[in-house]
């Protein structure tokens, strides 16, 4: 890359340049708020495991958002993996492998159904994924039966999910980092990843360029569901006793993380690193507020507000002329209005 390229890259606004400073700010804020500091072993061991799970799930969501869609079947899929782990393993280590395989198959099916309904049949992604969420919950109840055979996940999974490498840094965090890096390399340097990005960014262009655009867009839903599955398995291990609310927090949180990671800004190019930073930001903010004694309600309010503000920020960065026009109008000058170009 020559100097001109480097300069051009420095000048363009990328999601990373927006969320990066945000994360630094929230890290400083956390360091001040949390007693003992952010890097205390006790803090890291409470913060990192759930954060790692959120990172993985949010990266999954970003694949769908990259196609211009949205996936609201996240909570149901995450909850389902918890039930599968309990049911298939019966809480025994010997049944763990079988449970993991069933989880993977179930997630691939969910992704395929979502993808085919949305991309193959051109149905609305929001309603389809809400509806498949219901279907998942229904099948989960049929599969799980009246009473699950165990309430604890296999000890191996629980042990492994809570184990640390050094000083409070858990294996889960290592997995999340590896997941992020593998995702980034896949999307930038692998043929399949590039084609996935191209098909997500501009379906018609990709089709005319000779790519099986629709297939890649369906693949995005499958990758997303598999990520939720991985997140769900790790979450089950982390809590030890997954219940029917296991997936609930991830609907709003995953979307907030993706939006903060600049999905709306980059349109098509999903950036796992930016999404990871988005997850770090929203999770740490939530954690700090909890430390400060804010109630669950107030924290959910903050999540919603951060989502709306994040979107607005992306809009402002993307449309400087429009924003200038808006400001001019606010100041009372008679700037002509933008015509409402219809969708």
């Amino acid at each position: 890359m020559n100097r001109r390229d480097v300069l051009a890259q420095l000048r363009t606004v990328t999601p990373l340049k927006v969320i990066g400073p945000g994360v630094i700010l929230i890290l400083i804020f956390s360091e001040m708020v949390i007693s003992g500091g952010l890097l205390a072993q006790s803090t890291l061991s409470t913060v990192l495991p759930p954060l790692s799970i959120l990172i993985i799930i949010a990266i999954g969501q970003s694949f769908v958002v990259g196609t211009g869609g949205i996936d609201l079947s996240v909570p149901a899929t995450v909850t389902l993996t918890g039930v599968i782990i309990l049911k298939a393993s019966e809480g025994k280590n010997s049944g763990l492998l079988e449970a993991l395989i069933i989880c993977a198959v179930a997630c691939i099916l969910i992704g395929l159904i979502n993808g085919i309904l949305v991309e193959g049949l051109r149905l609305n992604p929001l309603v389809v994924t809400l509806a498949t969420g219901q279907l998942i919950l229904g099948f989960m109840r049929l599969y799980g039966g009246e009473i699950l055979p165990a309430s604890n996940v296999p000890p191996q999974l629980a042990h492994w999910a809570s184990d640390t490498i050094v000083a409070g840094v858990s294996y889960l965090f290592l997995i999340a980092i590896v997941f992020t890096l593998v995702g980034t390399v896949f999307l930038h340097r692998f043929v399949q990843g590039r084609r996935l990005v191209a098909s997500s960014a501009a379906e018609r262009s990709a089709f005319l360029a000779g790519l099986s655009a629709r297939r890649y867009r369906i693949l995005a839903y499958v990758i997303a569901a598999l990520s939720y599955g991985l997140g769900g398995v790790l979450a089950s291990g982390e809590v030890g006793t997954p219940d029917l609310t296991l997936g609930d927090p991830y609907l709003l949180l995953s979307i907030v993380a993706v939006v903060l990671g600049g999905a709306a800004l980059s349109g098509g190019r999903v950036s796992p690193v930016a999404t990871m930073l988005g997850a770090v930001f929203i999770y740490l903010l939530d954690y700090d507020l909890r430390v400060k004694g804010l109630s669950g309600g107030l924290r959910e309010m903050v999540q919603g507000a951060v989502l709306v503000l994040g979107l607005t920020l992306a809009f402002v960065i993307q449309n400087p002329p429009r924003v200038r026009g808006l400001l001019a109008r606010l100041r009372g000058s008679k700037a002509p209005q933008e015509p409402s170009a219809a969708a």
Partner: protein
Amino acid sequence: MSVKDQKTPTDLAALDVRGIAKAYGVVRALEPASLVLRPGEIHALVGENGSGKSTFVGIVSGTVRADQGSVTVGTETLARVSPAVAQSHGALTVFQDGSILPQLSVAQNLYLGTPAEQRPAYRRHEKWAAERLGEWGLGRLDVTAAAATLSPGDRQSLEITRAVAARPRLLLLDEATSALDANGVDNALELMQRAAAEGCAVMFVTHRLSEVFRVAESISVLRDGKWQGTHRADSTDAKGLVELMAGTNVDTEFPPHATPDEVGGVVLSARELAGPGFGPVDLSVRAGEIVGVAGADDNGQVGLLRGLARIGAPSGGLTICGRSVAGYGDAIDAGAIYLSGDRAEESLFRSLPIRENITVGMLDRLSRWGVIGWQGERDLVSETVSNFGIRMGSAEAPPTSLSGGNQQKVALGRVLAGEPRLLLAEEPTQGVDVRSRVDIYNLLRDAARKGLAVVLVSSDASELVGLCDRIVVMSRGRLVAELAAEGASEQSVVDSFTAAGHGEVGPDAVADERPAARPGLGRIRELFQRHENGPRLGLLALMLVLIGAYAQSQNGIFLTHANVYNLLFLAMPLAAIAAAEFVVLFVGEIDVSVGAVMALTIVLMSEFVQSGALIPALLLSLLIAILLGCVVGSLNALLVEGARLSPFIATIGMLGIVNGVGLTIRPTASGVISPALLEGLAKEVWVVPWAFVVLVVLALVADWALRSTGTGLRLRSVGLNAQFAHRLGVNSRLVRSAAFVVASALAGCAGVLLSAQIATGDQTVGASYLLLAIAAPVLGGASLAGGHGTFVGCLLGACLLIVVQNLTATLGINDAYAYLLTGGLTIVALLLYTSSAGAAIGNYVRSLRLRFGNAAAAEEGAS
């Protein structure tokens, strides 16, 4: 008779345009242009495709915002960019791609596009429409027929007549005669003269010079966004205009044509190829040859070009490089590639760097074991950039940072990098500056010399003559002539598809050959499309009856007074929130925060309406509900319509905020609500809760208003096609913003109804309505694209969902089935009522049939 005689020199200008200009990114669509039109004057604006004509018309008509300059219609300068404002000043526009809504009747379309002060009461609109059309010579149209059943020509005539009949001060026609046959053109020109005779200034945009000289007094020419001056019609001729439009080609040098020994074997051969808008066509193209497809606009050229790549599953035989081609994938494998003229949507990846744009088709060759090599990619990019002379800053910037010419070179670089055997290019130099144009001609000719076969569609006659070795001419979807490039001139090409000189023969155009009445199944389908609500509601009612009958046969308590009352009582809040969501769906938006608003209303009621008699408590609750709804709805409207954020994400954010507020007030379910109110809400009329009766009455009234009033029609037009509605002067954004506010207010009222069941402040009750609120209207026939469905359908949909959810208890089966049925019914309803789903399935079946048919034919040939 000369039109000029009727105007006095003291007339004020009807239109005064001063220095308007527009750039899209770095592409300058229109450089500062000025024009004055007097009443009664007919003015023609001519230019090739992409010369800035439509931008000029767009600015004057209020659909495009100018970067600078001013537009004055009559005495007033347009202060805001909006078709409604332009229309209120008396400027009416007939747009190139129309603004007729096919789902509405002819009369409704006429009503919608007519200025408010000329419209009758809505109930008389059909009689009024018939009279008005009769008066202006279109009496043969059935005003009650859906506009979809009209031929394209009739649709265009209807639009022109609609505008002329409104007696505007200024009439703008943007390529308004493209779909008309000779008779239609005669009528349209006559209408223009009639309007001018009444003092209207007429400006029409066209590239058909024969029409220009028949009616225009003055003519302006645009080329590459630059104003080439205004000329009097009697002081210029067709040849002079063509030179001005094409820039006399002093600066365009074409590469030499192919010599006979450069032309090789047959690369492409099509037999009886037919698809939407074209065919059957036979065509064969040889290696090294550049074949141009000529024709007046919309005569099937682009359809044919796509058909030659088997895009859109056309019928007939197609062979590329000796391989039978059944789909675009096969065409690619055989060495073909298609280059669309729509750079923004179909040939570039706007959000990806230029580097990835160039290499996207070459990834296999650049990679080892699926990993793309850095060096190989960089080399390919720099090679393409230097070979194609792409002037750019950085390969890491998006292609939107480039000029039109360089964007097109990037696209061309991508398709030629794969060294295809056949290139199908649509308008390869549209919106491209002269210098890049010459580069592109040379690049195409160089590739052809190396054996590439090229078929291109172009509306630029000089380009066809200069670049192509052979020109095939299309009219009404068929090939009607073939010209060798040697000896052909621009005029002979234009003559081959338009009228010779100023003669009487009108240009050929696509006249729809589809008969008005289709037999059998088609007719029934048409009937269903026009009266979709009846069958949809009937189907829903039938399902309710069947499920009810089944439940009753399994368990006798189902149809008891208590159970029916109970079900309706449960359905009541769902029906109300479904109606709330429907308001948003009807205008083509979506809102996922309604359930949270409903729950927050109950939470607020548990704070503020803890006691009191029925009537004051009810009024206070409704007041709270509506106030809350207005706040949340306004915020939603601000985010979605004001800041144009995705409604999915913006309303999910609002859902979080509203839930957070509710949970802060009541972290867990607590608080009481006035017992008098709860009791009152549960009161019944026969087996029906009285509030449900009120809902039914309101739904019927609202449905009547949507179907039978002018306001309802305007709302519907926003849902059906917001862009057309905007052009017709409906303030789409205001309508949609209002829909968000009304929906949230209704959701609040639904909360009041739900409080009768919940009886305590609990924010979490909203979660289960996330899907249900959308599922009920969709079951009732609402489409997520907008413009369809009924309030009564929402009520029935809500009842069906509640019955299904309670079926598990009635039948004593696993409650899992309640989830499965809810999710399943929603998806089935989506499939039934989403027209794009049907189209997707149809396409898939057609392409399968094609593939299967071809395989069978190949087998037959082998045996």
